[in-house]
């Protein structure tokens, strides 16, 4: 399958602080990829590199086959960008902003924009800085839909949105991306939203990628295990077992390994009566990255 986004050996520091080293990933055409990670693991850094607002120390990224630093400006017509917080030109009204962007995109879909705007309770002459965050998110989404890009890069689309608007945004976007075979790269700090939206996920920890796979596969393989243990029990380091913790005589740990294998390895450590359960994406994320 053709890769629409390719990043190779990205390394970046802020001053002397390493963000990550030799990070590589691809996003194939038509897939929605979510980047998950705790604060400070480099999600925004990655988005900034992808959208051309940060030059990494080393490594390179290509979108639609073009190096980001040397991209032909016209290629940006095929890339939609949502800035963190749904930022759009605050000083424009919804009419002005539509008229402004329309002249940059030959394939501009005015109706798509106004269809979405029609559902908002805003006056055509209301300026964007007078709108709620939810309304602004719809303006930003409407503009992206009208631009009709092949690739969408969305930075923390859930920031500042209440559950209703988040759901609206997610459903609209998923339906659109799937129907039109769009490629999407996004981040969000609300992981439930991602579960409904993304096909693939990358889970980042400080300085590295923990997991990169389809969400379905992750949820199929990932299990939470609990077992009663004695007071003061400490699980020795066991291969394939992630983030073990003991709370009130109950051991909790996570693993992607086959269940039988996990049972065998834990039995060696003296843990029996193991209960396994499937988890959602949020628990999987915590299981992978830990609570701290």
């Amino acid at each position, binding site marked *: 399958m053709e890769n629409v986004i390719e990043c190779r050996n990205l390394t970046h520091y802020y001053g002397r602080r390493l963000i990550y080293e030799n990070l590589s990933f691809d996003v194939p055409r038509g897939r929605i990829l979510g980047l998950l990670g705790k604060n400070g693991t480099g999600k925004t850094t990655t988005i900034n590199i992808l959208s051309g*607002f940060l030059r990494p120390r080393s490594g390179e990224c290509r979108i639609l086959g073009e190096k980001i630093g040397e991209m032909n*400006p016209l290629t940006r017509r095929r890339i939609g960008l949502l800035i963190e917080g749904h930022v759009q030109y*605050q000083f424009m009204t919804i009419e002005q902003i539509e008229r402004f962007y329309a002249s940059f995109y030959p394939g501009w879909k005015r109706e798509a924009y106004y269809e979405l705007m029609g559902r908002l309770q805003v006056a055509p002459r209301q300026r964007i800085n007078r709108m709620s965050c939810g309304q602004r998110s719809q303006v930003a989404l409407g503009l992206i839909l009208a631009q009709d890009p092949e690739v969408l890069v969305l930075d923390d689309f859930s920031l500042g949105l209440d559950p209703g608007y988040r759901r609206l945004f997610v459903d609209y976007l998923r339906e659109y991306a799937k129907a039109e075979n769009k490629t999407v790269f996004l981040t969000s700090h609300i992981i439930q939203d991602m579960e409904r939206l993304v096909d693939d996920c990358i889970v980042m920890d400080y300085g590295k990628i923990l997991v990169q796979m389809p969400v379905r596969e992750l949820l199929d393989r990932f299990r939470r295990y609990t077992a009663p243990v004695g007071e003061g029990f400490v699980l020795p380091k066991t291969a394939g077992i992630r983030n073990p913790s003991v709370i009130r005589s109950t051991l909790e740990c996570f693993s992607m390994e086959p269940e039988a294998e996990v049972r065998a390895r834990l039995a060696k450590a003296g843990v029996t009566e193991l209960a396994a359960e499937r988890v959602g994406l949020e628990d999987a994320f915590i299981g992978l990255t830990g609570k701290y």
Partner: protein
Amino acid sequence: MIKAIFYKEWIKTGGYGLLALLLSTGFAGYAMLRMARVCSLKGADHLWIVMLQRDAIFVDLLQFVPLFIGLGLAVVQFAPEMYRKSFKLTLHLPLRADRAVAAMLAYGVATLAAVFLPALAAMGGYLQSILAPELWQHILWSTLPWYLAGIAAYLLTAWIALEPTWGRRLIDGAMALLLLRLYFLAPAPEAYNGFLPLLTAVTLCYGLLAMLSLTRFRDGRQD
């Protein structure tokens, strides 16, 4: 696409432009009114003699008006771009970033010209009626460095506004202050005449500095 950039700049600055036009012509008009008052009280010959004997030009109150108008325009035009980094939207448009910034600056300089020229024309028109060509030209030539300072203040403020880090903004600001001093060194009226062509060229080149801020912004420089 450049037209659309102009449209965006117009939305940001249209109101300010009108206000600046009122201020600029208002101050010039006030200066002319004061001269007209002197004329009616003491006769036009009093103006002539004071100009000839004391090197007075009667429009000193206009000195810093263009400077503040230029500075204000840059703030009105570029502060919204820096608000929550909306400038990223401009940079993501499908045209070369340097051309987009150049178009924004060209719009600003053209706006300032449109704000300043009516004031100069109004002064020229009135002064012609009461003063000999040597004298009214003496006055207008003496004001040109001030109007140039307005354009310089605009371009230098744009440079500072687009700069992504505060540390560097301080350094750039200090440089800008020194550069702006250059327009207010006149020991006598018309002192800049010979230097004006070079100074105008240098002033327009201040636009290049915004390109440095642009590059730093795209490189993701942070405090």
